[in-house]
């Protein structure tokens, strides 16, 4: 049984379909990476899974329950957390308040979960009283990821978590994501830094015009000549 399956998804923003039969699956303990050209529909697929975009045809199944076109709030309570590609922090809230908002949908004491996030991102612990809008790009991605982890998700969806980061920070972020996976969380992420992402990924999908082009294990995709030519810079 997969944690999440999306089968044969069609849908768009009102005009022509952007997704043309895309399918993905994620297991727990697994990092799954979606790569593809700009405009291929990677972000759109994430939104469709999370209920932010109307799925016209196809189904999304989470832990064997259909959640197609479910409301985003209900995704959170089921244990799915999503970090959008852009505008993914509350800029006028402090780091700690951002994290508290992440835990809003769950009842109970926030402190242990805050400690877990601060353990994972010590930098955030130092900056807990700083406004998120005043932080660097890398720090902001940490806030965004931390916010999502506050619901103790079973599935974490990340849209380009390393966009705009320095090479050193990119390495660090991928290590962080690997340790999140090691907590037993399934990670579904879209990535432009395809080489590094596939290196830590268990499996990957290559999306083109809203449909699966390739799917394989991370190492196999890295070794695939066609994929290499298209996305890995030769």
């Amino acid at each position, binding site marked *: 049984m997969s944690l999440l399956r999306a089968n044969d998804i069609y849908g768009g923003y009102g005009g022509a379909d952007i997704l043309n039969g895309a399918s993905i699956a994620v297991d727990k303990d697994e990092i799954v990476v979606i790569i593809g050209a700009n405009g291929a529909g990677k972000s759109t697929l994430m939104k469709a899974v999370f209920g932010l975009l109307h799925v016209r045809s196809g189904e999304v199944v989470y832990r064997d329950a259909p959640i197609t076109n479910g409301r*985003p709030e209900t995704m959170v309570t089921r244990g799915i957390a999503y970090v959008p590609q852009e*505008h993914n*922090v509350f*800029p*006028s809230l402090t780091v700690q308040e951002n994290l508290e908002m992440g835990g*809003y*949908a769950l009842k109970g004491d926030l402190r242990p979960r805050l400690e877990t996030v601060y353990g994972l991102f010590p930098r955030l612990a130092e900056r807990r009283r700083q406004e998120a809008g005043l932080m660097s790009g890398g720090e902001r991605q940490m806030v965004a990821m931390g916010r999502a982890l506050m*619901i103790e998700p079973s599935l974490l969806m990340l849209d380009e978590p390393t966009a705009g980061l320095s090479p050193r920070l990119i390495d660090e972020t991928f290590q962080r994501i690997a340790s999140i996976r090691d907590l037993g969380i399934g990670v579904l992420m879209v990535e432009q830094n395809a080489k590094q992402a596939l290196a830590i990924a268990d499996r990957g999908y290559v999306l083109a015009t809203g449909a699966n082009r390739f799917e394989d294990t991370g190492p196999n995709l890295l070794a695939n000549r066609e994929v290499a030519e298209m996305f890995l810079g030769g």
Partner: protein
Amino acid sequence: MYTLIELMQLSIYGIVLGSILTLGAIGVSMIFGILRFAHFAHGDLLTVGAYCGLGFLSLTGAPVWFALPAGMAGAAVVAVLVDQAVYRQIRRTQPVILLISSFGMGLIIRSVVQVIWGPDVYSYPGGIQRPWQIWELSIIPNHVWILLAAVVLVALLHLFLTRTRLGKAMRAMSDNMDLALVTGIPAERVIMITWIIGGALAAGAGVLLGMDSRLTPMMGWSTLLPIFAAAIVGGIGRPYGAIAGGMLIGLAMEISTLFIDPSYKLAVAFVIMVAVLIVRPHGILKGAW
């Protein structure tokens, strides 16, 4: 020497007016931050609050300060009812439709107040107060209480926004509505709290305005423009900016009477607003526009 004293005297009036405008502008700003429309019935929530306070006093014979909590409760209820009955139904349409509906709602509220209480001018019991003479300044006791009440209300709001879960959620929604949705913040509950607080603070402004002068069905409507000026100057969508905006507009309106005819006070509010926007197009704190 004479003008200096007069300037200080007018500054006191300006601070009193400013604290009243602040209470109204905070609500306008919060509502804009969460719902993205300019609430034109806000002035009439002031009126509702003032009259609910008056009604409570005449029914119970309670001391005059009970008008404040009673008015705040009354206007909060009216604000929530209006939102649920009207604005909520059209929330997904364009902001301009909400704006025009709120204009109409204001007209309705004003008429209802007039139907219930009539067009007469009322005032809260207490009568004319003898001012305290302090040095060369005369200070009307009510002005001190008005300022104190406004400070307490703003402090309570601050505690709410920074210490409570719902208050933080309100700031989060105002920051980024889409992310709030994705995070699982209950939007409808936050919207309702926004109306409760916005209505209550408007009523606070209304009761305090009533204590400073008189109650008429038009009192709120005619205060709406400086309230909007204060909210915009402060940076619309930023309740903390509304405090700065309210004080600036209030002071400018009163001090201007040193130089020009008092009937131009409203124009002064706008001149100040335009002047600030030229220097800081998003208001004192960067607003949501």
